[in-house]
């Protein structure tokens, strides 16, 4: 019963969304929605597919929001997607052509009212001065309005359902954006002139699709697609660009070539990669050494209060990481920070590359040693006591017995956990971003800081102040996938028991 109800809700939701999605031309979202519904129907409407009934929900989410984004990242790494290249080529061509409008003596003129939709898109409402017909137009095209669709007062459209009309002051404010706005028509485009007037002019540029060329009809100059850097532009035979507007294009392996051959980027990349490895390995070694030492010290039947120790040492592990990191970031302040004032030092913790790295490792030690302590305690308790006794009887001292018997057994047990911890720290964005922001930076390379690890570097390339470089950042992310995959393989090998998954 519940099953039928749930399926009904799924189908109903998809059906209800369909008209809106189709009208907005969001065909990808529409297709995905119906594929999900179809998978659910096939799985749950029949009595067969017993196993699938239990696997489908999680798998769907995994595929949609983990696997697909990973594949999309790899695909994106072969494009120049980013600031200045967000549009498709068609959109860019249309914009360049529409912007070449000039007014002719016989150009029709319109009374203009500017309105916005609920998501902030512009719409021109026009009344032809010669014919008094009313139109609505945006970058998709022009549409004649029926009498009911809009209210016309004194030759201007003053209201239309679903639109907010701008006051002249607001139109003035939106000036720079409106200057780029043109409504394409059959033989030209309509553009704004003044606050309340628009004209239909002829475009001087024409796009010839077969030749993939834009022709200036006054001078007959031909602008062809030319690659300059990692972007494509329309440019004439001397390489002079017609417009600074570019578009999203495939660049093959250009991003990877740049990462490995541009000496400045390569230098930064290798340094960051090296530090990522040192940071991850150093964190694991430090936390494990301290955690193991503590476990050995406290895991002795004669030590009383073990439960108390464990409860207190659990604290750093239990507190949400971002809170601890932000608290520690205050400790490292040079003037007022707790560490300098308690120790009497005057170390510039976060401003000096060496000390910033030391600060990161110290913080990560605090965050991670309780986990290693708990893990090592568990592993120690799993080693049979007879083994140690036998070694002691054979004449081995306490430390020799530990080194020769306990430690090797322990390492076999915690090996997979150490590799997992390495992989976790390899991508430990929070610690780096919240403590040092990847810095300190040098002026000659503001993209790559001294304590950046690969993931924080990637995020800065994509979302940092220097402008979005999605394509290039995706290439670095793809390299991260490969490295993480190698780490995963290493962990597979370390976990021998997996060979007999049953």
């Amino acid at each position, binding site marked *: 019963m519940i099953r039928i109800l749930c399926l009904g809700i799924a189908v109903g939701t998809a059906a209800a969304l369909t008209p809106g999605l189709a009208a907005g031309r969001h065909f990808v979202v529409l297709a995905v929605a119906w594929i999900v519904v179809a998978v659910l129907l096939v799985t749950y409407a029949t009595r067969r597919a017993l196993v699938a009934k239990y*696997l489908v929900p999680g798998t769907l989410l995994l595929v949609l929001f983990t*696997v697909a984004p990973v594949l999309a990242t790899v695909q994106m790494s072969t494009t120049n997607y980013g600031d200045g290249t967000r549009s498709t080529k068609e959109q860019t061509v249309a914009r360049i052509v529409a912007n070449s409008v000039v007014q002719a003596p016989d150009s029709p003129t319109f009374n203009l009212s500017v309105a916005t939709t609920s998501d902030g898109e512009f719409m021109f409402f026009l009344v032809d001065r010669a014919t008094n017909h009313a139109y609505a137009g945006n970058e998709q095209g022009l549409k004649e309005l029926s009498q009911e669709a809009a209210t016309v007062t004194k030759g201007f459209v003053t209201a239309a359902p679903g639109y907010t009309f701008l006051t002249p002051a607001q139109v003035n404010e939106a000036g720079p954006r409106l200057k780029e706005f043109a409504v394409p028509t059959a033989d030209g485009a309509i553009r704004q002139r003044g606050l309340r007037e628009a004209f239909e002019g002829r475009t001087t540029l024409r796009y010839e699709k077969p030749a993939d060329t834009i022709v200036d009809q006054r001078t007959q100059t031909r602008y062809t697609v030319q690659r300059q850097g990692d972007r494509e532009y329309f440019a004439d035979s001397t390489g002079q660009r017609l417009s600074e507007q570019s578009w999203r294009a495939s660049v093959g392996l250009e991003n990877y070539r740049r990462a490995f051959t541009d000496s400045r980027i390569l230098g930064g990349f290798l340094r960051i990669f090296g530090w990522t490895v040192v940071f991850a390995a150093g964190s694991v070694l430090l936390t494990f050494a301290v955690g193991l030492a503590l476990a050995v010290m406290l895991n002795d039947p004669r030590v009383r209060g073990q439960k108390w120790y464990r409860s207190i040492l659990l604290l750093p592990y239990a*507190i949400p990481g971002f*809170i601890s990191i932000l608290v520690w970031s205050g*400790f490292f302040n040079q003037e007022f920070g707790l560490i300098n004032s308690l120790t009497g030092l005057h170390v510039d913790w976060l401003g000096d590359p060496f000390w910033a790295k030391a600060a990161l490792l110290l913080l990560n030690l605090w965050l991670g040693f309780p986990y290693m302590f708990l893990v090592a305690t568990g592993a120690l308790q799993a080693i049979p006591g007879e083994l140690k006794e036998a070694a002691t009887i054979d004449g081995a001292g306490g430390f020799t017995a530990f080194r020769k018997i306990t430690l090797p057994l322990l390492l076999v047990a915690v090996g997979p956990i150490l590799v997992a911890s390495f992989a976790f720290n390899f991508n430990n964005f929070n610690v780096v971003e919240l403590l040092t922001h990847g810095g300190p930076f040098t002026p000659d390379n503001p993209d790559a800081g001294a304590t950046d690890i690969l993931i924080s570097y*990637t995020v800065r390339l994509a979302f940092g102040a220097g402008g979005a470089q999605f394509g290039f950042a995706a290439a670095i992310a793809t390299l991260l996938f490969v490295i993480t995959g190698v780490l995963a393989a290493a962990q597979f090998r370390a976990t021998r028991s997996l060979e007999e998954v049953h």
Partner: protein
Amino acid sequence: MTIRWWREVGWRHVGGLVAVIFAVVPVLYVVSAAFNPLGTVVSTDVVPTQFSLVHFRSLFEDPARPFPRWLLNTVVVCAAVTVVQVFSSAMAAYAFSRFRFRGRRSGLLTLLLIQMFPQFLAVIALFTMVTELGEALPALGLNTIAGYSLVLMGSALAQVWLIKGYFDTIPRQLDEAAVVDGASQATVFFRILLPLARPILAVTGLLAFVGVIGEFLLASIFLTDTDSKTLAVGLYGIIESDRSNNLGVFAAGALMTALPVVLLFQYLQRYIVGGLTAGSVKD
């Protein structure tokens, strides 16, 4: 306290105490800062000396930092993602533990492999995806808790291995007997296995919850409107905007965020330690 005691046991306590001090100082500092009425870095000591609730009050009264709203957002995200993750994982774990089917072994290994790729590595694609989704369905776009939760649900199968390991320890005779008595597979799963697996469900639930509450990378990129923030990005904004003077307010918020989590950890301590040795990692 003989010399012999010190040599054999006493030094162990010394080491333990050093570790305890190291672990506790930052925690004490947060408590001290939260109750210190001045709330500045300069005026805050490790040991609490003053008591005032002024920062807690300010958290609930200052509309520029709507802590209750962030708390609500965080609880909604955590609850939604945790329930979906634990439930989907438990269902898949049941299939992997009790059914024999083609692709079972490779499916399990694939899951383990995918699990090692943190979802946020694909942040760029996730960002463009949510942007496009938001253009089609504004309710699921950037700056919505729903869209953010949906993306985090991509880790729906993160707990399969832990739960499957636990299911494997529950004797199959139990469900076989139920099937003989006429129970369906669904009944076996919901009525027999799930109730028996409560300890592992609690632990995986806690791990999922803690993973979500600490998620910062995606939240910092998806949730930029004040009202759509989670505690992680919200509290970060407080401390980042004025490090020396906002310490008290931040600490008060941090304390209220961490306290329930810490108590849960203490309550479930026994199970967590067991789960750790089985190989789980807190994000």
